[in-house]
């Protein structure tokens, strides 16, 4: 049987498509031109006809909307079963999802059920000897690995931020087909809540953010991070997830994929390795300075100024010089 489709599973949040969904569409277009397959967007959700029509119009891609009461907030069982029903129908060569809390929750299970390969957090694609190779980060971004699918089908998740959402509108709208999901009622109750302590953060208003990573070594060394932030008129202290998990700083300081997204004039990363989940939260900073003892730390790949030093010696020396030069 000919398999000539690339299915895109759209993700909704707060009444619209997530940015990551638009990025997956860009990814799927690139994949589609590499393998001459056409795309199709699948939207599971509740009351989604309007959204389905909107995305069909702007993207020009055909859309299947799956409607059900239980597809309001995400949970694995109803979503997986509704999506699989449609996928078995269209029999796509590729299924693409964002590498989000929904996407990575769903993708491996879908792959198992379809007998497909599963390649997650894809950052790049290219063709090599007629095969399509998918690149992704390993070892916290220190290694770039290339994987290929060994089966007819593959389920892929696309790293947020790796592709840009297209702003162009299509000339011809895609078609829209709405289907009702055939789901058993009484699915378990799901509620959405704000993580504790999310609101009161000073990070959004800061011109300069000095961020502490696990490399600060111990909680007491936060003092030098605070002092460094203090030399700027609107400086604030940020942190990697590791530092918050250790309890050295509250989670409202956390920057990244599961924390705050910031874009200050200056971002100083102190003892932060530069894991992709951290970078995704600060890569739009106007200037990045990184202080790290390891010359191969991935944070240096995105920094404007790289300082290979032991921060426990470098920062106090720096603070002293600032003091003198005042």
């Amino acid at each position, binding site marked *: 049987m000919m398999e000539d489709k690339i299915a895109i599973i759209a993700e909704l949040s707060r009444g619209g498509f*997530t940015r990551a969904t638009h990025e997956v569409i860009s990814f799927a277009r690139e994949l589609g031109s590499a393998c001459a397959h056409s795309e199709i967007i699948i939207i599971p959700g509740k009351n989604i006809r309007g959204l389905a029509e909107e995305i069909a119009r702007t993207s020009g891609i055909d859309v299947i909307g799956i409607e059900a009461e239980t597809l309001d907030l995400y949970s694995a069982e109803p979503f997986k079963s509704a999506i699989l029903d449609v996928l078995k129908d269209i029999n796509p060569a590729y299924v693409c999802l964002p*590498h989000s*809390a*929904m996407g*990575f*929750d769903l*993708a*491996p*299970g879908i*792959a*198992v*059920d379809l007998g497909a*390969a*599963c390649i*997650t957090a894809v950052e790049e694609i290219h063709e090599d000897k007629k095969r399509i190779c998918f690149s*992704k980060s*390993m*070892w*916290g971004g220190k*290694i*770039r*690995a*290339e*994987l*290929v699918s*060994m*089966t007819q089908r*593959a389920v892929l998740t696309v790293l947020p931020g790796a592709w840009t959402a297209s702003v162009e509108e299509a000339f011809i709208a895609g078609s829209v087909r709405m289907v009702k999901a055939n789901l058993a009622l009484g699915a*378990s109750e*799901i*509620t*959405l*809540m*704000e*993580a504790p302590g*999310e609101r009161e953060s000073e990070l959004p208003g800061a*011109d300069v953010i000095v961020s502490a990573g696990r490399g600060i070594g111990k909680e007491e060394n936060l003092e030098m991070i605070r002092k460094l932030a203090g*030399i*700027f008129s609107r400086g604030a202290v940020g942190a990697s997830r590791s530092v918050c*998990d*250790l*309890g050295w700083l509250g*989670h409202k300081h956390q920057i990244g994929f599961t*924390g*705050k997204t910031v874009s200050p004039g*200056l971002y100083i990363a102190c003892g932060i390795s530069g894991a992709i989940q951290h970078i995704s939260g600060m890569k739009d900073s106007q200037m990045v*300075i990184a202080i790290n003892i390891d010359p*191969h730390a*991935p944070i240096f*790949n995105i920094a*404007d*100024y790289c*300082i290979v*030093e032991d921060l426990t010696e*470098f920062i106090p*020396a*720096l603070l002293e*010089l*600032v003091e003198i*030069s005042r």
Partner: protein
Amino acid sequence: MNRFDEFALEEAVRIGEEIPGTEIEAISVGPGRVVSTLRKALERGAAAGTHILVEEERYMSPFETASLIASYAGTGHYDLIIAGVMAEDDMHCQVGQMIAAILEIRCATSVIHRGTIREETSVYIEREIEEGQRLCMEVALPAVITVQSGINRPRYPSLSNVLRAKNQEIRTIDANDLWDDDGRDQLISMRRPEASAKGVFLEGGSNEKARALIRILHERALI
């Protein structure tokens, strides 16, 4: 031990403290060296260790790892299988979900909070999702959960556990006896990513770098 697995193990130990009679077994797939990781799991409170032995040192796709664990776990009666949200090395974020799919049981990933376990029928969990939000739900048991860092504070091994772990036997199972099939994806290359061209490495001794940095900050009117 993978940092995410430290959180997973700690969560298991906590369940053990809440529900007397809970048996905690640590399972690891890999070559001989993973035995030392299993010993660390015993030191941190696992009661038993099982090593699924894969002879050669090679890339294991998540599907292979999950198939082996599911094949082994399918023979036991596990109420809960806990994994880390991802492995720190290959960062796939897949094994737990695949185990659940193969065993046809429930699964929830990125769990940042676990509540009470109700009469061995369900567990309350909160999944961490984007934008500082959480999805809260009851998950029917048996289930797989993958835990996010920060769900707990892993404790240090106790002396008595360290002593026990030293001599305790670790069960070894040959991977070929569990599952013998092909992976569905293949690793074809690994390299260091190119550095971005724009970055400037400040040169000289520590003091010169500090001076250069201050100059840059002045030039940009940041201080």
